[in-house]
């Protein structure tokens, strides 16, 4: 049955091809070739992107001798999970993980909440100096955080609001080792990449038709209520995207973490200090002055890196739609 229908199909194809003077055949062949070329290209690029990751996974399961063996390329001969156990100890993984989950969540929620308010204000209201303030948002995107970090650092080490603390307690407040400075910055939309979120959220709110808002006003909805009941539910996709980005970027950020969260044990910070701890551990085992080989060090870094990003990969796999599809499908006009 199916064979017969396939034959009919084929006959029809050649019939149509003959009628079109060979055009159809050429066209079909060209599109087939194009599809194959595209598949090869995409496969290659995808491989290029995940190859380092795969490489790290294979290295992380190798014993030290495997690293020097030129005949071993990707599959370890002496399969071991000792690297993970050791990295777990050196990083204080579970403590760091707990802290990182908590800090990233707190920071990103505050950040997105503040940016939503600001983005909405920029998108839906007219007020004097609006362009000036929006230019300030652009400046906050453009200024490298390093430009002001020295000033901020000193600022928070000797924190004071118009000399109030000094008047009361006789000295300024040192906020350097608490989370307060960073939380305050996030509330003020000055956290990691806050400007970008403001921009994205504003672009989204700008595209919502004005009639929706007007209908709410006519029905007696106040300004705040309109925002919460009408606008926010609409903005769910963009808010999810921003939240996920904020979360992930906060997770891997070591810059702000080092600057403001000196005392809190966080994964990215632990990761940068991993080599130091490894050589300490090595010295305590083999005597002072004995250093781990650089290959072994790199294997440990690869393991630590994997352990840091595995939670992120899980989040990404679960919430992939939230990351990408909502951003690309909503068709934000820039």
């Amino acid at each position: 049955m199916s064979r017969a229908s396939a034959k009919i199909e084929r006959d029809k194809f050649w019939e149509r091809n003959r009628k079109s003077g060979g055009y159809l055949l050429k066209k079909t062949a060209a599109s087939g070739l194009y599809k194959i070329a595209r598949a090869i290209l995409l496969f290659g690029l995808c491989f290029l992107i995940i190859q380092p990751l795969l490489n790290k996974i294979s290295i992380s399961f190798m014993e030290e001798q495997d690293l020097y063996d030129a005949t071993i390329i990707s599959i370890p001969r002496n399969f071991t999970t000792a690297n993970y156990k050791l990295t777990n100890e050196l990083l204080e993984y579970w403590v760091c993980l707990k802290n990182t989950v908590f800090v990233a969540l707190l920071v990103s929620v505050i950040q997105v909440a503040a940016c939503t308010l600001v983005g909405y204000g920029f998108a839906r209201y007219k007020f004097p100096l609006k362009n000036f303030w929006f230019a300030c948002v652009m400046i906050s995107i453009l200024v490298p955080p390093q430009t002001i970090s020295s000033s901020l650092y000193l600022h928070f080490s000797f924190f004071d609001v118009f000399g109030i603390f000094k008047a009361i307690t006789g000295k300024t407040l040192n906020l350097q080792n608490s989370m307060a400075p960073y939380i305050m910055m996030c509330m003020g939309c000055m956290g990691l990449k806050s400007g970008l979120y403001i921009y994205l959220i504003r672009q989204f709110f700008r595209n919502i038709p004005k009639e929706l808002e007007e209908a709410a006003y006519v029905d007696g909805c106040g300004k705040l209520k309109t925002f919460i009941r009408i606008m926010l539910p609409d903005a769910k996709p963009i808010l999810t995207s921003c939240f996920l980005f904020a979360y992930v970027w906060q997770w891997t950020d070591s810059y702000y973490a080092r600057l403001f969260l000196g005392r809190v044990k966080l994964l990215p910070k632990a990761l940068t200090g991993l080599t130091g701890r490894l050589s300490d551990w090595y010295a305590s085992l083999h005597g002072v002055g004995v250093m781990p080989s650089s290959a072994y060090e790199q294997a440990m870094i690869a393991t630590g890196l994997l352990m840091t990003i595995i939670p992120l990969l899980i989040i990404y796999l679960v919430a992939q739609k939230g990351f990408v599809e909502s951003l690309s499908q909503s068709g934000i006009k820039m």
Partner: protein
Amino acid sequence: MKPKKKKTLAQKNAIAGYLFILPFIIGFIAFLGYPLIESIRMSFSEVTVGSGGFTMRFIGINNYKKAFTLDPEFNRLLTESISGMAYKVPATLVFSFFVALLLNQDFKGRGVVRAIFFLPVILSSGVIVGLEYNNTLLQGMEDLVRESSNNSSITTTLQSILDTGGMGSKFFGYVFDILDSVYDIAIAAGIQIIIFLSGLQTVSASMYEAAKIEGCTAWESFWKITFPMVSSLILVNVVYSIIDFLIRTDNEVMEKINKTMSPQMDYGFSSAMAWSYFLCVMAIIAVVSFILSRKVYYYE
């Protein structure tokens, strides 16, 4: 009783608008505007940190002089990172546009491919970039491979073949530089791909249909429809790529500024370097966006 003066709707809206952006205004003034001015002052002075605070002594442009004339590294790093940007940003743009076009088509497994392409958005952030780049083990492996086999990679072989002519060898050099750094580009292009993709999504299919009926080939409709429609996004992406490239954590100038500040405690000098760098970045962005914004087509 005096009748209360009623506010007009515009005034009410203005107040509401200001209330909404209040967090930003406070944050901007307290955590960006003030520190910015402070760091300008620092860059012109010698900062000494004591137990009860810090003091600044005005020393004119000495810090800047030190950065540009005395410091052995700063000039070199600055020119290196700007020239690196000059070829990496166009390459990133072309790559991300091309990939966005591919990902916008319909094929099997598109979701998986998209997921992989956006993976770098997560993986090339923060601490991971820094660790990725001084991966000496990979470097060592590469050297080993290079020694054991005569031809280390396709590009070098090709390069040696094409180089013999002498003509245009410099151009080929650039091309091969880009080819060799295709991994870096693919890693850096995640956000740009998303932006282009979201732009391509807004181009209505009816436009292509109309063009096709009028006898437009795919090539023509690409240049006459797709390209103008997303041209505003090209501007956005150029600016984003420049910023992203110049202020990412593994940028050498950034590393130097950080190093001068954090272990060496030379706040004045590091502020001076940061400001000269920032002004360079601003100048580049201003020139580029001025040139591009004249070509951009806005469809309303």
